[in-house]
């Protein structure tokens, strides 16, 4: 098979000693930062971006792969040992996982999460490798009109379909789109919304916005809320190993979670949370001991964790094959590619196969490293969890500003960081989702380019936008993504949707 040849070449890149080292540093840093309470995968990736600034593209992306998977894993440790409300990335894991930890079964909970993440990561990454060439072949036939329709669909699913309010989702998206306008117009060279400020001509940096919204906005809202008190770290008592019963109750949920999570991540819809919720309810229905749910059922940890990781790998499908980020994390990873002048998409598979396949292979390597590293190092992660709040958030802000200063040490850039941070606080305060702002910023200019390209080819005829069956289907789906949730909410079924909100990730 051609795919396996390419993947084998990818392994040649990934298994170079230096790249193995980068992957190791990536998973370690990613887990260490991801473990810290209040830091989700998106912020982990954004905070650690400066570490990769000075590496070569392949090394940097390999480290990124490690950071991404490590961050996902670290988040689940946090939610099992520390019942963190407000961290939506692995909120379902907290439901049962924290109960297990309270009952003194924290070890097996962490183990089933770790092994489930490994199984899901392995299968889903192989799925990514298998499915990517097909989508690439399909995507090569896409014209600008189809891309534009695809991006509209991504906009609508990211902003309007989930969360507790269509209005606030769309508002967040359009704030991002408005920020995306700032800077020099790519096609005509005209400065837009720069107000004569030279710093604005390059546009708003995705990492500055993401770090500000996630790190500073989060810090401000935690500081202002002061809900402290019942955050208790559950000690890991007894063995971390799973017994025979744990194994027999875990393996099916792992596989089911993977099957649920991967397609959901791979669709241009975004949100790892959807998969975790579906997996949770499936496990609850299939469980032999449904009465244990709510009191620490191991299936309720194994399934959602697998779904979470499978859909994290799934989001790489649209990102790598179409250049389409569907989560805040993916948007920041796209920014990571762009700093090297690489544009993910079907062409990248043709022009830089060693980078794409090296990245996919290092995902598998990182996944394996996580399995080997994490269970023995649980003691260290637990100690990281017990860092007092004031030092923790002070440290987060040091690293948040470090990234911006490292990229551009100007007072103006820090001013933007501060302004967006305050904006992030206000957005949180009023219940606006954060991810659509970040996705809008990076995807807005790309959508505009595709639209103008399409209209340039058709010489201004707007019907070209609905000129092919694919474009029509995508646009109809986009309309459904807005209208159906509106109807559901109007009929009082909004609660389910708000639980599926893809906020942090």
């Amino acid at each position, binding site marked *: 098979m051609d795919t396996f040849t390419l993947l084998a070449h990818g392994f040649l890149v990934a298994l170079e000693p230096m790249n193995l080292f980068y992957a190791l540093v990536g998973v370690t840093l990613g887990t260490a930062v991801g473990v810290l309470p209040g830091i989700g995968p998106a912020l982990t990736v954004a905070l650690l971006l400066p570490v990769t600034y000075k590496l070569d593209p392949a090394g940097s992306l390999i480290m990124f792969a490690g950071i991404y998977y490590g961050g996902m894993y670290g988040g689940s440790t946090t939610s099992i040992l520390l019942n963190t409300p407000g961290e939506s990335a692995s909120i379902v894991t907290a439901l049962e996982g924290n109960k297990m930890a309270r009952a003194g079964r924290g070890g097996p909970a962490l183990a089933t999460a770790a092994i489930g993440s490994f199984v899901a990561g392995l299968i889903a990454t192989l799925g990514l490798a298998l499915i990517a060439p097909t989508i690439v072949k399909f995507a090569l036939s896409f014209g600008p009109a189809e891309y534009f329709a695809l991006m509209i669909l991504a906009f609508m699913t990211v902003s309007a379909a989930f969360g507790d309010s269509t209005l606030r989702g769309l508002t967040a998206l359009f704030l991002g789109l408005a920020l995306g306008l700032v800077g020099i117009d790519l096609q005509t060279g005209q400065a837009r919304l720069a107000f004569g400020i030279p710093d604005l001509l390059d546009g708003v940096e995705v990492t500055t916005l993401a770090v500000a919204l996630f790190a500073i906005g989060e810090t401000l809202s935690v500081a202002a809320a002061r809900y402290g008190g019942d955050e208790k770290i559950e000690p890991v008592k007894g063995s971390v190993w799973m017994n025979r019963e744990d194994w027999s109750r875990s393996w099916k949920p792992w596989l089911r979670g993977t099957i649920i999570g991967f397609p959901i991540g791979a669709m241009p819809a975004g949100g790892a949370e959807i998969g975790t919720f579906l997996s949770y309810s499936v496990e609850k229905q299939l469980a032999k001991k449904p009465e244990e749910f709510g009191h620490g059922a191991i299936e309720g940890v194994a399934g959602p964790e697998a779904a979470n990781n499978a859909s994290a790998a799934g989001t790489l499908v649209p990102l790598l094959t179409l250049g389409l980020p569907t989560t805040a994390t993916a948007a920041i990873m796209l920014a990571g590619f762009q700093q090297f002048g690489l544009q993910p998409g079907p062409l990248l598979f043709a022009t830089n196969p060693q980078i794409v396949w090296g990245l996919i292979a290092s995902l598998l390597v990182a996944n394996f490293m996580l399995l080997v590293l994490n269970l023995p190092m649980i003691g260290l992660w637990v100690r990281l969890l017990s860092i007092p709040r004031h030092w923790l958030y002070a440290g987060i802000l040091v690293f948040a500003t470090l990234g911006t200063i490292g990229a551009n040490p100007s007072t103006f850039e820090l001013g933007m960081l501060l302004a967006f941070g305050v904006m992030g606080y206000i957005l949180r305060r*009023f219940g606006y989702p954060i991810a659509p702002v970040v996705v809008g910023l990076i995807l807005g200019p790309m959508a505009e380019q595709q639209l103008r390209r399409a*209209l340039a080819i058709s010489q201004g005829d707007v019907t070209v936008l609905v000129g092919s069956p694919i474009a029509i289907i995508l646009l109809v789906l986009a309309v459904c993504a807005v209208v159906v949730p509106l109807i559901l909410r109007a009929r009082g079924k909004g609660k389910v949707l708000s639980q599926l909100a893809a906020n942090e990730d």
Partner: protein
Amino acid sequence: MTNTVSTSATRRPDRAALVIAVVLALVAAVIVYSTATAHGGSTTRIGPGAFPYAISGCLFVLSVWTGIEAWRGDFPEREAQEFGPVIWIVGGLAAQMLLLNTVGFSIATGILFAATARGFGKRPLWMTIPIGIVLSFVVWIIFAKGLQLSLPAGPLEHLI
């Protein structure tokens, strides 16, 4: 937006949310003004103005929609907030921003560190500021010397 809390007492116009509606309208107006007065650049069939106009149009619609929801009190209830910590942290960030290029990374960031810790209730500053400066200095050595990131140097950094 749960149905249970929609009693007449809570359905009061939400002033803060009305302010958001006004801000959204202002952003839309700024985009329109800035686009209408822009010049330069080459001309194309779909010019650089089309997308900004479309976005400001949508923002304007969202502003009206926000206004309606705010008027009906449809926004989720907000918990009471303490603004002292927010002021400490924003002040710390502002201090770092203004001092960075004169006193260098370590001192400016150390002040941010201490101000944030203060926002979370950790004092006294005479203890937290030195801790922050030492920590930032270590970060500076790792990132500026180890990873060749260009972080502004000040009197402390010039010592090595």
